């Protein structure tokens, strides 16, 4: 077994953008995870902000639940702008 905990790393590449998952690091604690993430994932100005999250605290959707989980959004075409047709005279809306 690994002696250090696994952390998932999220990096905000530029101000105004979301944090994005980039990979993981091992560390004895959160502070060390932050330092390791900086050394590993931002050696060339790839980020302006980092999140580290213990991997075992993340709840993820299971792939075999995909249908059950996302099905309700599939039959609601009226949620998309393209559902509503307007006469050309109205112009761009």
């Amino acid at each position, binding site marked *: 077994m*690994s002696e250090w905990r696994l952390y998932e790393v999220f990096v905000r590449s530029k101000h105004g953008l979301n944090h994005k998952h980039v990979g993981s*690091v091992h560390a*004895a*604690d959160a502070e*060390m995870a932050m330092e390791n993430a900086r*050394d*590993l994932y931002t050696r060339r100005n790839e980020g302006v902000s980092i999140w580290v999250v213990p991997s075992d605290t993340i709840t993820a959707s299971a*792939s075999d639940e995909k249908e059950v989980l996302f099905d309700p959004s599939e039959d609601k075409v009226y949620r998309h702008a393209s559902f509503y047709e307007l006469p050309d005279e109205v112009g761009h809306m």
Partner: protein
Amino acid sequence: MYAQLVETGAKRLKTRDEMSPEEREFQEKVDAEIKIEPKNWMPEGYRKTLVRQISQHAHSEVVGMLPEGNWVTRAPTLKRKLQLMAKIQDEAGHGLYLYSAMETLGADRDEEIEKLHQGKAKYSSIFNYPTLNWADMGAVGWLVDGAAIVNQVVLQRTSYGPYSRAMVRICKEESFHQRQGYQILLDMMREGTDEQKAMVQDAINRIWWPALMMFGPHDDESPNSQQSMAWKIKRKSNDELRQMFIDQTIPQLEFLGCTVPDPDLKWNEETGHYDFGEINWQEFYDVLKGNGPCNRERINTRKKAIDEGAWVREAAVAYAKKQKQRAQAA
């Protein structure tokens, strides 16, 4: 290639009819270029093969630091020393990206590293050769990283999502490695003394054949290729990749004003490729079996680093525990 002779456990491909419904669905996804992600169902053989291939690839990055580390204290200028250290740090980073991808398959990093130390896991044969003069740093960057790039560019399209994304990151960084290597050789050839120019040719003479061996055995001697290609863990065959590497490298070699130790190398107008001589496969298999010039030394150095660093890891855990207790008491 950084992964050679990766065992798939499959002697031949299963036909559609022999596949279970799950296997068939999986293969259809792979065929449609839909990436496989950690939580998706996958055949056990696919998972095991990937763990072997990715860990072998990661071990290669890590062991690959050693031949270069040999020259950090001997680099001719401060500039070259800084560049070399940055490159070595990248190799450590590449190893970690790959171990991270491997762990998404449920493998444990420490266990896989332990397998390497026990001689049960392979790494690329190329790192079992010594680096004898400063020009070797140039030739390694240019030829070894160059061969790795040819392989890794293709692997960006591999079917397993985390592996593919690690490859994208690695490829972005790898071109710096190759350029800095080539520039070392270019400077020596342009401004060097006769003795320094001879060092360049000597380095190329020693590294050329081992670099070609990196791509692994011929396609017809590569029993695992068919399954790996069907799973799209591998995207191009060993011989195809080797030919690509040679075709792009020879013009660069000629620009340097150097030669390779292969009397059969010549441009073939008809095929549009370079013809080249036969690789010494006995040497390849010997090195892979652990009998290359530096196999024992490399593994011993890795073990020593892990053993002598144990107190640092223990101290870090003890410190983290203490901080946690303090925070709880407060």
